[in-house]
């Protein structure tokens, strides 16, 4: 949602001249650049437990973060009040990074216009409601809790009737709406309102003295109009899918083997194995294993890996990143060649390129850093069934809970909730609860088949690199010829 500019100025109780005053104060001791990030977030949640919707919450977070850049150094402070004295105090605290020798704000604007400092380009113009990527039809703040409760009850019933082994169901609806106003020393003013709705349901199953659980989530940048019967039925069906296999599943024999990653949530492979290593702050600091690989082949010809902030309603999408840079579709890998890192303004300056709209932050309490948005691989040309059929012995994985990466070494892991053994090209015994570990550059090189079935997973993925931000991931079916699989 993009409301008129004045509504944001009113919300944060500032005028445009005061924005300039704050920037000037923050740069009083020097510094090359300053930005202001005003945020007003409302969180709401409802929980169904033991058959009743018996808990609700609403939370407000309001404040302004002020950042001063002095070269690549950062001064950051925030205030939970937008009263002018509090913001001025905050601006002075952020200015502590400057040592008095850097350029003043007026100079930074002039110099930037000459292309000599700070960022490669300015982003002029006002936000355009017609180009909004998340125009919520039913704004969460205006939707009464009483109008949302029936969805959770229907969801519970839809899950319960599908499997009589279910002993408990927990269904949750969480939403948030964030108003943002951003201004900087380049005189760019951006504003928007970001919705997010997340539904999750966890079912606990018991059978023969054993217990299993399954959680399904859906998350979109959308309003309450996302709560449709179609969504409800889709989630209910997924909540009970594969439970027979989960009760029957066992740990495989561990070791190194080929792994077929099912389409969709397997995109966590891209997020952990390469996405983080492409975030330019790690490269700027020399810590990423990909820091000297720009322009080089890192995987097979034909593979394209993208970080996309432009998918309408997607959990990772943005109109503007948290530095006021328009979101874009960034090709990180084209035809197997590393072509772009993911940049915020600091790293873009370091590399002499334009920022890619990846400067993101958890809230006004944090300075932005390069972060992924929706990260996925484009479809290839192999039939998924043919990929499985090509594996004499390995595993197929399709449901995950979390992942992690060590940036320096490139070693990544992800936890597999469920999958199957592959024996002689066929899916056989179900497997579950195993961790898989590999090395990012090696895993990229070891992708030997790419399916024609890209799926971007609609689950509630959250990336936790220093700060939590919503993301999404996707991938077609792929075959990685060698990964280490945990087992007995």
């Amino acid at each position, binding site marked *: 949602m993009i409301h008129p500019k004045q509504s944001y100025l009113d919300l944060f109780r500032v005028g445009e001249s005061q924005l300039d005053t704050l920037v000037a104060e923050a740069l009083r001791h020097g510094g090359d650049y300053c930005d202001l990030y005003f945020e007003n977030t409302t969180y709401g949640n409802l929980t169904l*437990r033991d058959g009743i*919707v*018996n*808990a*609700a*919450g*609403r*939370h*407000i977070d*309001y404040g302004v973060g002020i950042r001063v850049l002095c070269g*690549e*150094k*950062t*001064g*950051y*402070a*925030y205030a*939970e009040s937008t009263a002018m004295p509090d913001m001025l105090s905050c601006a002075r*605290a*952020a200015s502590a*990074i400057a040592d008095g020798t850097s350029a003043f704000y007026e100079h930074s604007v002039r110099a930037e216009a000459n292309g000599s400092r700070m960022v490669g380009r300015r982003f002029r113009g006002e936000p355009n409601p017609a180009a909004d990527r998340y125009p919520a039809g039913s704004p969460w703040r205006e939707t*009464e*809790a*009483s109008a949302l*409760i029936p969805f959770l009850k229907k969801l519970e019933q839809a899950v319960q009737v599908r499997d009589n082994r279910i002993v*408990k169901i927990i269904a949750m609806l969480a939403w948030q709406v964030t108003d943002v106003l951003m201004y900087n020393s380049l005189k760019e003013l951006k504003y928007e309102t970001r919705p997010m709705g997340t539904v999750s349901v*966890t079912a606990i199953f*018991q059978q023969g003295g*054993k*217990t*299993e*659980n399954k959680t399904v989530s859906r998350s979109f940048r959308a309003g309450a109009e996302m709560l449709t019967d179609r969504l409800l039925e889709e989630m209910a069906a997924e909540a009970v899918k594969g439970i027979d296999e989960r009760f029957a599943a066992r740990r495989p024999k*561990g*070791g190194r083997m080929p792994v077929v990653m099912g389409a969709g949530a397997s995109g966590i492979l891209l997020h952990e194995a390469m996405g983080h290593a492409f975030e330019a702050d790690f490269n700027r*600091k*020399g*810590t990423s*294993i990909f820091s000297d690989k720009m322009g080089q082949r890192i995987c097979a010809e034909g593979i394209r890996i993208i970080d996309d902030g432009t998918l309408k309603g997607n959990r990772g999408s943005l109109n503007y990143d948290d530095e006021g840079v328009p979101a874009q579709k960034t090709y990180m890998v084209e035809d197997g060649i590393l072509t772009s890192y993911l940049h915020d303004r600091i790293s873009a300056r370091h590399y002499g390129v334009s920022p890619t709209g990846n400067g993101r932050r958890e809230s006004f309490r944090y*300075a932005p850093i390069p972060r992924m948005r929706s990260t996925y691989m484009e479809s290839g040309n192999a039939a998924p069934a043919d990929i499985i059929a090509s594996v004499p012995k390995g595993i197929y994985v399709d449901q995950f*809970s979390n*992942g*992690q990466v060590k*940036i*320096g*070494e490139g*070693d990544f*892991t*992800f*936890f597999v909730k469920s999958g199957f053994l592959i024996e002689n090209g066929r899916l056989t015994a179900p497997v*579950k*609860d*195993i*961790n898989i*570990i*590999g090395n990012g550059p090696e895993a990229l090189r070891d992708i030997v088949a790419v399916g024609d079935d890209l799926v971007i997973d609609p689950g509630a993925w959250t990336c936790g690199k220093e700060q939590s931000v919503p993301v999404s991931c996707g991938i077609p079916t792929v075959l990685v010829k060698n990964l*280490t*699989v*945990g*087992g*007995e």
Partner: protein
Amino acid sequence: MLTDQEIALARTAMEFALASGAQKARVTLNKSLMELFGMLNGELDKVTHALDRSLQVALFVDGRFGSFSSNRLEEEGLKAFLLDAIDTVRTLQPDPARDLPDPSRTAKDALTGREPGLYDPAYEELTSDKRRELALGTAVWRRKAELEKGFTLISEEGEYSDSLFDSVVMDSNGLFARHTETSFEIGYEVTVEDPDGNRYASYWWDAAPRLRDILPALETCSETAVRRAAAQIGPMDHPGGKCNIVVDSECASKFLTPVLNALGGYAVQQKNSFLLDKAGQRVFPERLTILDCPRNPGETGSRLWDSEGVATQEFPIVDRGVITRYFVNTYIAGKTGMAPTIEDATRPKVVPFGGCKTREDLMRKIGRGILITGFNGGNSNTSTGDFSYGIEGFAFEDGRITHPVREMLVTGNFIDLWNRLVATADDARPCMSKSIPTLAFENIDCNA
């Protein structure tokens, strides 16, 4: 740090809620101030100043319950927020299990906030210049040539921070409790490169509630991180299989936290715990005792009350292998009929046994196996206790490290794992709220 006016505002909020339709209410007011100085390759890279406040309100309205919070603490806006909150709670279904804790269970001895001995007056003497000086003195970048023996230091990134946290909880049954603590912390992440261009990263950190206790670590933290990173150079494949493992005290909480979570009342009530129906039973070996020690003055993690204001107390969580109880808050007690306790372990402590003092003693005792010094991802199944984690560390033989290992996984089930605990060291890190020494387990599945 919390002002009298802020505390008075919290009380006003509670009284307003009670006058506006809530029959009971609990208000928690938190305030924290943090100063952070970040260093990159020996130079100041980041300065952060953070002041946070939040008012959390638990409302009990007509047998219904809701939890609300705001950081906008103007009185009129807060009142409008509370009226809206009460309306929201009224839309819910009644749940008779929701209640405040009985006043006989709540803390009576936390009136000033300083009773746990976690407040250091030296905090008030710190100036911005002094903090900057402390932070800049922690980097080793300028003398990296002295450290680089067979490797190159690629990057050194660290943070010095200190904070003051102040919290008050009050409820309509007369509860008033306060907790105040200071914290001083140093952390470094470094990347080194061997002559073949292979990179290895590691970290180290330390923290203390008193400034004087962190000063030694300011001197050594980054160098420790460099040493840990360099030790990983030259990893070799390990055949895996059933291995003895020694888990360093720095990362041993990875194995204890899921056990504590499985003892949580919510998990048990929702039948989503691998320790369901195990209270009172000997589930673990007789040599294992885990205490909760929340009231040790001056020790990290000490706390006199939980989030409901219930007084903490020292008790055995696992007594010679027997699970003594679940952690049951007022709500879960009402749902299940179990006796209420504090809601979670506050400062759990694995009682050392086996006579070893240090990690090295333990490795000598075990002889051969894998020393785990960190985890890389992985997870566990809360219903079954099955787990699988990526690990980093070293192979050792005859009690001595032979080589780093790479791309290894450890896989098992928590109940089985803890039954394979054969000895511990006595080296729990004082900076951690979970007091866990280095642990040794036998015959664990390791994959490579």
